């Protein structure tokens, strides 16, 4: 890693950890009801919706509320797409979206995946972008945060039935955290050059006319615009990642400058990292939150290094063709296929690592064109279950599941009932944690297997050889982790992929949320056992390393064979000649 790349990565991580701390403490105040500067608007919303904010929910009610809310959202997003041609705010006269694509996109946005089977600028009306996609960007993120807070309450409460109120947690996440941050962020993005308008596309003349594919000269360029900034702000902050444009944050209108790129990149991991501080504050021991954050960073840094240095090393075949890929004062060099000049290797590799560490899934470069090991990194990041910072809420609840598994394994080694944060971890919790941890691998491997043996699955492949397998593996890994990024050469807007990936996204989101709420309910009922001499302390460097190892080992055991068939084989093919 050269000096330029090192500095850019170091500045990124430094700013992230510094900004996460105050935000995390603020969020703890929000969830404990100690912040109420939007109280009148909040109460007005509760009155309109018929929410009794004092009501405590048992875990089953909390889960029902979560599912009902997601179900209604699913239906709304589906219908808005199907009928967008009859609705206002459609200046470019977009027709209805196909049923299978609407189904896929509805699940995708409600489950915080934001997989894009479609190309935004030529598929969705302004109204669909706003009412369906922007709204779900907010509330699917808020749902993840609510579930996390319910789980934290499970650790905090003693002999209690309730784990909070879903409606209150979801509304507070939106109003106090996501909406204010998005407003400031959106205006910043417009300042940097992002469009925010309801006017239709602009047509400009080309300086030099070109010959079109049919031999006729092309003299004009159509520039798609729209209300971009308001959607991109929450797309980044809520680990959603579904772009306004097809090229996502590689598009100059969706990411105009190195400055906008830096701030968008911070926004990917900001809330997820901050929630570790929220956790520490709510459980009354900041060291517990910092330990989880440290375990995440411990996994993040080496993978980031691998991605940056693989991309910087470039493609040996390009060098043979007489192309200069070396870094100099005049160019960053490296593998520039699918990358933008203003981002270069460092900001593109940083983005790829961060967007898959989180469940963001936005891209500022095309992962499909990464070098084999550069593309292995986002794939592996997702396969660890997106617990390295992770999605907002979902990342930390995933990491807490791994923490339970870690104390359980440690307990097995010494023959003691494990504890975490003063709560005894017993058979019920471990069973639920295992379901939550293993469901993803099941869907990834099964889905990939089905796709590679069926004609409809293989038809989507764009690149020959091992890389084609990686494209399919990446698609199912992305869907099963609610990420949404892609090896985008794969033609996934077919009824086969729309249905199979849609089903995958649905089950891997909600079959994780329900066991987690069950754990929350079971923990809340327990009393606290005081730490004794046999208690494994969970806020020490030893536990940090142990936890990171558990995450890596579970991921490697599930996926190493699949990875060797894809990126690893391709790496040796590329460098071996």
């Amino acid at each position: 890693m050269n000096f330029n790349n090192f500095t850019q990565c170091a500045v990124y991580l430094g700013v992230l950890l510094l900004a996460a701390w105050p935000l995390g403490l603020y969020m703890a105040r929000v969830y404990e009801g100690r912040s109420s500067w939007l109280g009148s608007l909040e109460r007005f919303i509760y009155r309109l919706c018929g929410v009794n904010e004092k009501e405590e929910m048992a875990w089953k009610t909390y889960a029902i509320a979560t599912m009902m809310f997601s179900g209604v959202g699913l239906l709304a997003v589906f219908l808005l797409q199907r009928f967008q041609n009859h609705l206002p705010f459609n200046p470019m006269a977009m027709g209805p979206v196909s049923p299978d694509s609407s189904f896929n996109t509805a699940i995708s946005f409600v489950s915080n995946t934001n997989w894009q089977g479609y190309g935004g600028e030529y598929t969705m009306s302004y109204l669909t972008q706003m009412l369906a996609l922007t709204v779900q960007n907010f509330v699917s993120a808020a749902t993840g945060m609510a579930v996390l807070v319910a789980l934290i309450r499970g650790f905090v409460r003693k002999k209690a039935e309730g784990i909070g109120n879903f409606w209150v947690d979801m509304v507070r996440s939106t109003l106090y955290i996501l909406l204010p941050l998005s407003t400031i962020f959106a205006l910043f993005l417009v300042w940097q050059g992002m469009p925010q308008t309801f006017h239709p596309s602009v047509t400009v003349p080309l300086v030099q006319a070109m010959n079109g594919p049919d031999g006729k000269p092309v003299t004009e360029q159509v520039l798609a615009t729209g209300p971009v900034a308001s959607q991109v702000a929450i797309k980044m902050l809520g680990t959603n990642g579904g772009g306004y444009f097809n090229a996502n944050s590689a598009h100059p209108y969706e990411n105009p400058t190195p400055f906008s790129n830096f701030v968008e990149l911070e926004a990917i991991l900001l809330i997820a990292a901050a929630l570790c501080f929220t956790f520490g504050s709510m459980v009354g021991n900041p060291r517990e939150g910092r330990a989880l954050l440290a375990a995440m960073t411990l996994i993040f840094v080496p993978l980031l290094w691998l991605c940056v240095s693989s991309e910087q090393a470039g493609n040996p075949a390009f060098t043979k063709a007489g192309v200069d890929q070396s870094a100099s004062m005049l160019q960053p060099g490296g593998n520039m296929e699918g990358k933008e000049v203003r981002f270069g290797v460092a900001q593109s590799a940083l983005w790829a690592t961060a967007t898959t560490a989180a469940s963001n899934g936005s891209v500022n470069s095309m992962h499909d064109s990464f070098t084999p090991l550069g593309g292995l990194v986002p794939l592996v990041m997702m396969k660890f279950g997106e617990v390295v910072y992770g999605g907002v809420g979902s990342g930390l609840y995933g990491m807490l599941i791994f923490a339970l598994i870690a104390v359980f394994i440690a307990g097995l080694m010494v023959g003691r009932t494990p504890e975490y944060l003063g709560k005894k971890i017993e058979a019920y919790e471990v069973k639920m944690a295992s379901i939550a941890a293993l469901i993803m691998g099941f869907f990834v491997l099964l889905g990939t297997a089905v796709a590679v043996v069926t004609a409809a699955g293989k038809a989507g492949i764009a690149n020959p050889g091992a890389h084609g397998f990686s494209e399919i593996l990446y698609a199912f890994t992305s869907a099963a982790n609610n990420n949404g990024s892609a090896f985008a050469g794969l033609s996934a807007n077919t009824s086969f992929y729309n249905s199979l990936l849609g089903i995958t996204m649905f089950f891997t989101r909600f079959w994780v949320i329900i066991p987690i709420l069950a754990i929350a309910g079971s923990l809340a009922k327990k009393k606290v056992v005081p730490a004794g001499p046999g208690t494994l302390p969970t806020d020490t460097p030893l536990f940090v390393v142990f936890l990171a190892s558990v995450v890596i080992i579970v991921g490697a055991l599930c996926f190493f064979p699949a990875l060797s068939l894809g990126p690893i084989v391709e790496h040796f093919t590329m460098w071996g000649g």
Partner: protein
Amino acid sequence: MLKQLRIALMSTLVLTGVMGLFYPIAITGLAQLLFPKQANGSLIYKDGKAVGSSLIGQPFDDPKYFWSRPSATGPVPYNGAASCGSNQGPTNPALLKAVQDRVDVLRKADSDNTQPIPVDLVTASGSGLDPHISPAAAAYQAGRVAKVRGMSLTTVQELVQKHTQGRFLGLLGEPGVNVLELNLDLDAAQKPS
């Protein structure tokens, strides 16, 4: 159960109003008020007419212009209404052939130039709309442009310098030369003659 369903319906409706209508409309109002140029696509105007956007690249293959990066958009390159990258993998023979073809075209257009070709000039960008080339790619082409136009190399290099955007704070991102703005300026500089 029914009660939760009723709340789910109502809250979806109310939150759609707040985040789906009020929020984007308020941001649009503020954006149009505070940053009207950017909010409408950063258009470049000449004689009162929009001639392009400083953020969206255009295709060039005339030797008198600086060439932009290859673009994978269809059906024409630099299609501002359908952004995309090539998505070709690093070992895909089609990619290696495309790179070789681009190298050959560049060599043919400027046969005296023996410098190695900067990588960004022969690889497709992520968006297909990249407005920039690296300073190395501009330096590679400056001699050709000066020769074809009959301008002095220094004048061309000064214009390149003028349209080079650096790293943010000298640290983040990478420097780039805005191709469309540079080419418009080149045309303007030669107009009087």
